[in-house]
């Protein structure tokens, strides 16, 4: 079970959270101008890297807020968690217990 640090509530077990897939996928700037292929990219295509991955989690059994996490998809180490209005940190920030802020 992962130990995930909610930016508001601190470290809690994975089972308190809900997974939301890839982070930083912006809604298209000019939706009316997108062709079918571009819509498909926006709706269905996501990155699937082996290694650090920026993804969304929701603290559903806690504060019920969404936040982002940088997690390694091979070691499962949670490298950093951060608020939605913060930029993706560098992968080297490592403290799953949440000392980074």
């Amino acid at each position, binding site marked *: 079970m992962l130990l995930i640090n909610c930016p508001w509530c601190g470290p809690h077990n994975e089972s308190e959270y809900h997974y939301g897939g890839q982070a930083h996928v912006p809604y298209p700037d000019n939706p009316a101008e997108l062709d079918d292929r571009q819509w498909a990219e926006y709706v269905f295509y996501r990155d699937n890297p082996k290694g650090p991955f920026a993804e969304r989690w929701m603290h559903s059994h806690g504060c019920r807020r969404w936040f982002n996490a940088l997690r390694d*998809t091979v070691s499962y180490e949670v490298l950093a968690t951060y608020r939605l209005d913060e930029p993706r940190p560098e992968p080297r920030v490592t403290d799953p217990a949440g000392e980074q802020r």
Partner: protein
Amino acid sequence: MTAQPQPAPPEHPDFLWRNPEPRSSYDVVIVGAGGHGLATAYYLAKEHGITDVAVLEKGWLAGGNMARNTTIIRSNYLWDESAAIYEHALKLWEGLPEELDYDFLFSQRGVLNLAHTLQDVREGMRRANANRLNGVDAEWLDPDQVAEVCPILNVSPHTRYPVLGGTFQPRAGIAKHDHVAWALARRADEMGVDLIQGCEVTGFVKDGEKVVGVETNLGRINAGRVGLAAAGHSSVLAERAGVRLPVQSHPLQALVSELHEPVHPTVVMSNHVHVYVSQAHKGELVMGAGVDSYNGYGQRGSFHVIEEQMAAAVELFPIFARAHVLRTWGGIVDVTPDASPIISATPVENLFVNCGWGTGGFKATPAAGLTFAHTIATGEAHALNAPFALDRFTTGALIDEHGAAAVAH
């Protein structure tokens, strides 16, 4: 119906396959020697006379998801496109032991999919009716009939999620997965296919927008056509050829108990409380549950998934309360947005992909191989895999099987 004592596993043939050095060039290179890669090679040779084929496997033959799955075979999917391909697979399974001259213990002991909520009941009845319209054997059973099929199931109304009924497909069942792989490998080898283990594809050789070979740890291998059958790693691999796939890789785990007397006569799956259980030929209980919610390549799963799956199993089968878990393991499955597979040409010429089978591709092995071989050999889709092309994510013609896929993802 009570469980019959199982026959001892059959003896294997003396000789299974050669271990040749890779040649510098092949008509077709298949990446991944799981069930799908091996079946593709077998049908390329058998149906299309294409025998200048290499199957490249980074580990050992069929050591990926083929060796990790819970071996459930059924064809009770909701939509016409899925019913067609999975039912075709089931018909192939029914003839395959004889065709391959290899007893892989294909056992049509039936599969029960339980319903625990009113919505489950409605979905189950709808699916059973849809199945029958598609010529797939399916019945709706009430709780008493469920208990007749599987007497050790607790169908009392006093459990937390009582059994309100279930769909039953009598022709469904299980098969010994390793034996299936070895059976296909032996026949493909006999027809001249080179099966090359310890050979990892690390990149692609391209001539403009055309693939002309692969780079491997054993050197460059030229290829007229390349077919990817790399299951959980399909997107990582395709990306190296410049193709983006709409799949996400998730860990899926399973476990087995120690051996028990035969007590469990069929296969039971529950989508709602989320466990599926069968008893293997030797006597171990084989159990699976849902995928871990997050993306992962670690080939291990979360403990809380096992915990929930055990709780569900013990409530449904009180008789298992004191069974011991012997071994747990994980595999990496590639999941698509509509929970249906992709068997398709790609934007790169001569590069084909078979992926996105998620948690349920073992049952499809023969049909996946047959249709993928057809697509690679002719450059055209087979009628059965035409709806499963990559372009459905652009046209919107999705085949939403999240319900009938039966594993939460």
